[in-house]
């Protein structure tokens, strides 16, 4: 299969623009003006995202985020709160019926996540898809993924953790009671891992993006045609970033 590849780069984009670009590409793929597309990206400033059905107010300490210069955005996709800092993020936008976008939602997660598993394998990391939406190594989560289906298209985005700082993460998320924070941090350390911890060395965006790209190519049989977003996509992404993903009408709707 042929896929357009947009690598937005390790320098990262603001969260509202990342979410705007994902949706703008979805719009362009849905009308056929752009081909099926893989994006690779990072976040700058760091950003907390919450799932479509979550309340930003419930999940995120917005005051702490503001003080630390960290964005907070509600996603188009379901799932939980994620702190995006040391990670590589991908999004895949396909018309429904594409071989990676069968009607069965769990099956499409499985097929798409096989590309991430193959990428991790190239680093010597033995990972497995854990339904609904995780990829685990030795029972610990290293990647979370989330999918929505709109306008006749599938949009799945997800992250691979390069490093993990639970203390920093929980300084930005709301916890039910301050005295539980220590236990929650210990839980995350037991349940979540990162490539840095698995490999015992630093891994940057460029290296992680390259192995993921190789994994996607081998597991999906994909050939990539690398380009930038079209002018229309870039303009629509900016519009969505300004009018939706940085507005409380969207972010605080639930």
């Amino acid at each position, binding site marked *: 299969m042929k896929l357009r590849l947009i690598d937005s780069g390790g320098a990262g984009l603001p969260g509202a623009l990342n979410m705007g670009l994902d949706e703008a590409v979805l719009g362009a793929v849905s009308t056929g003006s752009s081909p099926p597309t893989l994006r690779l990206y990072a976040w700058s400033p760091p950003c907390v995202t919450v*799932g*479509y*059905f*979550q*309340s930003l107010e*419930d999940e995120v300490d917005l005051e702490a985020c503001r003080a630390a210069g960290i964005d907070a955005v509600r996603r188009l*996709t*379901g*799932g*939980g*709160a994620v702190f995006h800092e040391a990670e590589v993020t991908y999004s895949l936008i396909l018309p429904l019926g594409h071989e990676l976008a069968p009607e069965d*939602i*769990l099956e499409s997660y499985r097929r798409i996540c096989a590309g991430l598993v193959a990428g991790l394998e190239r680093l010597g990391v033995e990972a497995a898809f854990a339904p*609904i*939406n995780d990829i685990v190594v030795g029972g610990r989560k290293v990647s979370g993924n*989330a*999918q*929505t*289906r*709109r306008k006749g298209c599938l949009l799945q985005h997800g992250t691979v953790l390069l490093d993990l700082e639970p203390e920093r993460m929980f300084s930005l998320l709301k916890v039910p009671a301050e005295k539980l924070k220590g236990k929650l941090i210990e839980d995350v350390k037991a349940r979540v891992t990162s490539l840095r911890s698995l490999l015992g060395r630093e891994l940057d965006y460029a290296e992680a993006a390259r192995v993921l790209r190789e994994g996607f190519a081998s597991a999906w049989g994909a050939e990539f045609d690398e380009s930038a977003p079209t002018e229309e996509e870039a303009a629509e992404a900016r519009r969505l970033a300004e009018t939706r993903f940085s507005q409380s009408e969207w972010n605080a709707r*639930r």
Partner: protein
Amino acid sequence: MIARLDRKVPGGKLLRAEVEVESGRVLAASVRGDFFAHPEEAFEDAEAELAGLPVDRLAEEALALFSRAPLRIFGASPQDIAGLLSETAREAQAH
């Protein structure tokens, strides 16, 4: 009165229900959390239709609404959602 209840679905996601009740009927109800629902709008339509339902029939009505095609929920079942909504509504009524 308004009540809120959170429940972790065993092996699934966290549900946070909020129900406002007046004179034995639901005024507004929502379920937030880290679950997935497709299409997302169908879930919100079901939530909107909870308004006006009598509290003592909420469990069965909510089960029907959240089981309605094309809605599919991952990480919680319609039973989990309906059960928690009904419990939350009873809690709101008791205040």
